[in-house]
């Protein structure tokens, strides 16, 4: 049975339909790369799963438990959020907290973990993303790549069953994407289940276990990465790959992934 099943999500903003019935199932240990042009609904899909947006219709089945997306209770939302972590495009670190405090804040405040225990766990997570030596730094003192790694540590600390990544490297300078991607690759190797909205084709090709291609609010194609990149089934996917890979042929992009 799939760990997470998304069924028939619909979402419109001010009458503009962004998701038009998206269904997707994710197995434990899957790394799903969600590709597509901007405006195709990828980010909204991710945000609906975590209730950062309230979907108009659709449901989640998480570990066999059914939750309706439109009228979920606060309890349901809290339960789903507890099982998920979210990594934002703009990191969204708490700017008045140090790197370590960013990781421990939720543990101490929301999960009532004793401070010492939270700090030990926090340091472990910072070590995992290679940021232990910056534990006392504030976000303003860190580069974008470092901030994103702290944000990943913050997500990991809550012991999620799945991590949702919303274009985790899109706000980074090209030379900083590598450090974030390598952390993500390491998580994938360790068997973490991940749903990744990304424009990093090399990550999708080499790390993901499944590629989902979205356009105009629907999933057009769902394939294994080797199939998707070698012989995409849809003309739209082919057109997308032509545009993206054309841009990505520069050697700089290659070396960062």
């Amino acid at each position, binding site marked *: 049975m799939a760990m997470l099943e998304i069924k028939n999500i619909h979402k419109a903003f001010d009458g503009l339909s962004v998701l038009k019935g998206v269904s997707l199932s994710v197995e434990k240990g899957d790394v799903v790369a969600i590709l597509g042009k901007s405006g195709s609904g990828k980010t909204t899909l991710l945000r609906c799963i975590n209730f950062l947006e309230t979907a108009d219709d659709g449901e989640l089945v998480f570990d066999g438990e059914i939750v309706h997306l439109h009228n979920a209770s606060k309890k349901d939302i809290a339960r789903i959020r507890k099982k998920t972590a979210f990594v*934002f495009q*703009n990191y969204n670190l708490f700017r008045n907290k140090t790197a370590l405090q960013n990781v421990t804040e*939720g543990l101490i405040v*929301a999960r009532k973990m004793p401070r010492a225990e939270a700090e030990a766990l926090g340091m472990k997570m910072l070590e995992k993303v290679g940021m232990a030596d910056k534990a006392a730094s*504030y976000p303003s*003192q860190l580069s974008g790549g470092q901030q994103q790694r702290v944000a990943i540590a913050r997500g990991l600390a*809550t012991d999620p069953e799945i991590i949702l990544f919303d274009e985790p490297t899109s706000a980074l300078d090209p030379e900083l994407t590598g450090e974030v991607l390598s952390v993500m690759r390491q998580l994938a190797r360790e068997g973490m289940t991940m749903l990744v909205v990304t424009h990093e084709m090399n990550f999708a090709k080499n790390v993901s276990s499944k590629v989902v291609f979205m356009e105009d609010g629907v999933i057009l194609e769902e394939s294994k990465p080797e199939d998707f990149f070698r012989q995409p089934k849809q003309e739209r996917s082919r057109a997308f790959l032509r545009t993206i890979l054309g841009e990505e042929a520069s050697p700089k992009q290659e070396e960062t992934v």
Partner: protein
Amino acid sequence: MNERLIRILLESFPKILLPGLTMTIPLTVISFSLALVIAVVTAIVQFANVKVLKQIARFYIWVVRGTPLLVQLYVIFYGLPNLGIMLAPFPSAVLVFSINEGAYCAETIRAALESVPRGQLEAGYCVGMSYMQIMRRILLPQAMRTAFPSLSNNLISMVKDTSLAANITVMEMFMVTQRIASRYYEHLALYIEVALIYLLFCTVLTRLQSWGEKKLSSYGAV
């Protein structure tokens, strides 16, 4: 300057300064503290879009900012007795100053809250925090830092505004000065003297403000 005038100025100085320390400063400190509490609540209610309370907050700010402080003092001190509500001068002044200042500070704090990047709210939700936890621990501390210079300004204005309390018989610096001035007929010298004492108070506060701003310089930017 003749000797008599110098003697009057020297003798009056402690007499004016004393109510400054025992009235003007406590009146300012108490009123401003209450104003901050009112302001934080009013700002959050608006920021969080709490339905009915937001309308009440807007109404409160509209009325308070649209009417003169002096008139507000008169309504409370001279007006309320018509309804059988008698307040002593000092509590009346505290009531009016805190309500008045609260409205101005609320707008400052609300604007500062709006300026905190919203994504941190979402990030807080994602690690399981509640709205009020995120507000108290993440958003408000950042907003208060942003608001600090403006709030300091409000505080400095308030020190001077407390002189209006003379109109409702609070024995603060200006009231005392008026009495001394009319006794000696040295209005110019004595009003300049009290002005200088207000200036002294505000100078101290201005210094404190720049010290505070340095202390509070944005997180991590040492």
